[in-house]
């Protein structure tokens, strides 16, 4: 198993990959919790004019009937009009694609965006839905039975870590 990439370095690289694709119409939305941390960083690095949107997809998850409602859902805050916007969704790790599907479902309850693209720090494969990211920090292989998560230290530094599922 190779070492996990440096999340701080990936974050800067990801920002530069996104930069050429920005339009005056772009607005960013981070998905709680890891995606919100990453989005805060990307939003600052890219100096986007619109304030950052934050989204918790707890009310749109497809496993509610099996798992129940997640504890402590955060309040979704989208401080700009979604209608006709070029949206950039940000999450830390892309895996099954179910979170992104739920996020898109929630977004359409706010309006009809012109387009949605997805930026993730790490893509670990294992998709269960036809969803892909346009901007990827790195592809990361994750051993079976493990979960890849992004952490944020007290000082605000980002890191990738493996946990037992």
């Amino acid at each position, binding site marked *: 198993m190779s070492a996990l990439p440096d999340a701080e370095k990936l974050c800067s690289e990801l920002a530069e990959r996104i930069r050429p694709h920005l339009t005056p119409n772009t607005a960013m939305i981070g998905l709680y919790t890891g995606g919100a941390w990453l989005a805060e960083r990307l939003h600052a690095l890219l100096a986007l004019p619109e304030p950052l949107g934050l989204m*918790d997809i*707890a*009310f*749109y998850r497809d496993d*509610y*009937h099996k*798992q*129940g*409602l997640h*504890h*402590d*859902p*955060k*309040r*979704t*805050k989208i401080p700009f009009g979604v209608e006709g916007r070029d949206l950039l969704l940000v999450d830390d790790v892309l895996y099954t694609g179910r979170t992104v599907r739920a996020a898109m*479902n*929630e977004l359409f*309850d*706010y*309006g009809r965006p012109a387009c949605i693209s997805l930026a993730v720090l790490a893509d670990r494969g294992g998709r269960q839905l036809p969803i892909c990211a346009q901007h990827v920090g790195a592809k990361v292989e994750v051993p079976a039975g493990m979960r890849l998560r992004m952490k944020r230290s007290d000082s605000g530094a980002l890191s990738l870590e493996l946990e037992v599922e």
Partner: protein
Amino acid sequence: MNNPQLTASGALQHLLSVEGLPREILVQILDTAESFCGVTEREVKKVPLLRGKSVFNLFFEPSTRTRTTFEIAAKRLSADVINLNIAASSQTKGESLLDTVANLSAMQADLFIVRHAQAGAPHLIARHVKPHEHVINAGDGRHAHPTQGLLDLYTIRHYKKDFNGLTVAVVGDILHSRVARSLIHGLSILGVPEVRVIGPQTLMPARVEALGVRVFHDMRAGLKDCDVVVMLRLQNERMRGTLLPSAQEFNKHYGLTAEKLALAKSNAIVMHPGPMNRGVEIDSSVADGPHSVILPQVTFGIAVRMAVMSIIAGN
């Protein structure tokens, strides 16, 4: 004794009373309601959580506000809502409560919202429903009205941010009030240091101090330095007995006027579960005044009921 509201793993299975709920569950409901407030402010006020679920509003007692807010909450969760007009249905033909419920269960009910004049009726139903069915008490006799208590707690937290250091007064007919009972239990679970009850001796339950409250019969003394004033509805039917001389007399001693409210803190909020009797327990100048949060209470009630239903139906 096991708690009939909780599953074996401690999750909320039914909501029958605030009394006996762990603090974490109360906080979980309030936090979840806060997120639902975001949903109720946007263009499409609906989330798909309860798609395909059937919610039965079983109101054996009249109610407009509570039934309507439950109905709106269920619809905003994408559930199918069936309102039963019990007064005009089988119960008047002699069907028992449990037979009514068994029949609705055979129609694939998932959630029963129950209001009943008899204290304990929702508990009785909860003991007999199938494992996947849930019961929410929407007011039973003088016993409990937990979603009203929760929305009152939500309102207090919204305006006061924190329960620490608060003084809360509940004023009026404490004896007959399931709203007061649910709120007092909730305030005590969440650690509010001072809860006062204000009212005439005839409208105070026996041994009310056992709930951890301070009792005042003089409203002016009781209101002094309060952060929150909760007025209760004086039910007209109480006037017929010997409990009270008249509505005017009650208003004179226990009606909330601007002059009496001035004894509370300058940033005090005034709450009322509705429906209000203007000029009896509350003056219009207060009900419509800057301290009143009576209409926001109604709006928060929808988000709180969405939170309760979505937590319960997922467990």
